[in-house]
């Protein structure tokens, strides 16, 4: 199972923060495939899955953003009612706690993936290896 990554950026809750980050990515022609924002009183973390993650990470760091690269797992969801439920049910039955989640819809193949960050990615992968799940291959998004 290959690795996919989420890029996390720390941001104060102020106007223009998301714009600044996305501008950097846009200008470098980096494609955002999935993203989520978690925010609390005063600050938040913006998470992206992009096609060129290493390049995006280096670039954001160089531009002075507070950024980290986090390993994630992409799990295919069936395009039918209960698709998300099926995946989440398996994760919770294995005791895997989802720390962050976002959705990636692969436009060309009409598939959707749940992208999750968990506490221990290798352990989670080990627990999931015998389940009937399809995982997102990083080559599919580059």
């Amino acid at each position, binding site marked *: 199972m290959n690795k996919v990554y989420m890029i*996390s950026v*720390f941001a*104060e809750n102020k106007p223009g923060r998301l714009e600044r980050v996305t501008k950097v990515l846009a200008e470098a022609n980096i494609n955002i495939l999935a993203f989520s924002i978690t925010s609390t009183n005063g600050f938040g*973390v913006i998470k992206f899955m992009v096609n060129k993650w290493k390049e995006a990470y280096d670039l954001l760091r160089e531009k*002075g953003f507070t*950024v980290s690269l986090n390993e994630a797992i992409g799990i295919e969801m069936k395009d039918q009612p209960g698709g998300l439920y099926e995946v989440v049910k398996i994760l919770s039955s294995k005791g895997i706690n989802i720390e962050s989640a976002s959705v990636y819809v692969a436009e060309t193949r009409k598939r959707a993936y749940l992208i999750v960050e968990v506490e221990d990615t290798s352990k989670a992968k080990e627990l999931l290896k015998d389940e009937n799940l399809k995982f997102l291959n990083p080559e599919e998004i580059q």
Partner: protein
Amino acid sequence: MTGAKRGDILQNSMTYGLFTGAFVMHYGAEKIGILVIPAGPGNTERQINLMRDFGTTMLHITPSYALYVASVIYDKGIDPRRDLKLKRAYLGAEPYSEETRKKIEDMLGIDIYNCYGLTEMNGPGVGFECKYKEGLHIWEDNFLMEVINPETGEPIPDGEIGELVLTTLNREAMPLIRYRTRDLTKIISEPCKCGRTHRRISRILGRSDDMFIVKGVNIFPQQIEQVLMSIKGVAQNYQIVLESYDEMTVKVEIDRELFDGKIERLIRMKDEIVDKIRSATMVKPKVELLEPGTLPISEGKAKRVIDNRTI
């Protein structure tokens, strides 16, 4: 006292000019055969280049600027233990906490000694730490020292915190009698391990006029600094903003290197800051986590308290 000797190279990053801090150290160092680089503060790139090119072994610098220079050294990928020859630094001109000293010592792999002085008393060197770093010996053959209650003006016993008052004993043209320094400290009268008999004072805990009052409680910025430096994930720069008499806001930058993308950890860290400041000061603060580089960088004396209150 701290091991400095002929052959050492001192980079003097204090302000030259009307401030005595740089000159006293400059001439003192020259007197014992130390090469002095009169770098002055600021221009951090050049500071680091000087350290490398001259093989600087000692720094004379303010604590806030030392922290900043150390962080730039890291950002540039320089390993101070491998790429620089620094052995020790003399820090003075503004109060700072023991945690800050340890942090800079660890970052740069050096020993840091406190130096105390004031322009009115000829500048630095009124008090100096010996190698045990347990308070600053005051040259009692040159200064008569007392500690008083800043509100009543009455002397207080050794070991209690108050305002340091100095009288010059050898100065001829302009003797000063019972000069109020506004610096808060306490006298340590126990003998020092080094054998010197001059009594010591504790590190300067603040200025009697830096103190601010929130909810009727007296607070010193150093109390807050001590808390922040003890928490992992917080960067060195901080600011206390006062908008009203019953609330204080503490702004801290997060540490770029320790950011791991997990918001839960940031929330826990913020709660920890609130709790620890509350137990240190008895006042529950508002805490704002900021992106690194948001607060003004200090080159010289840092302005930590922004008081926007009107009466």
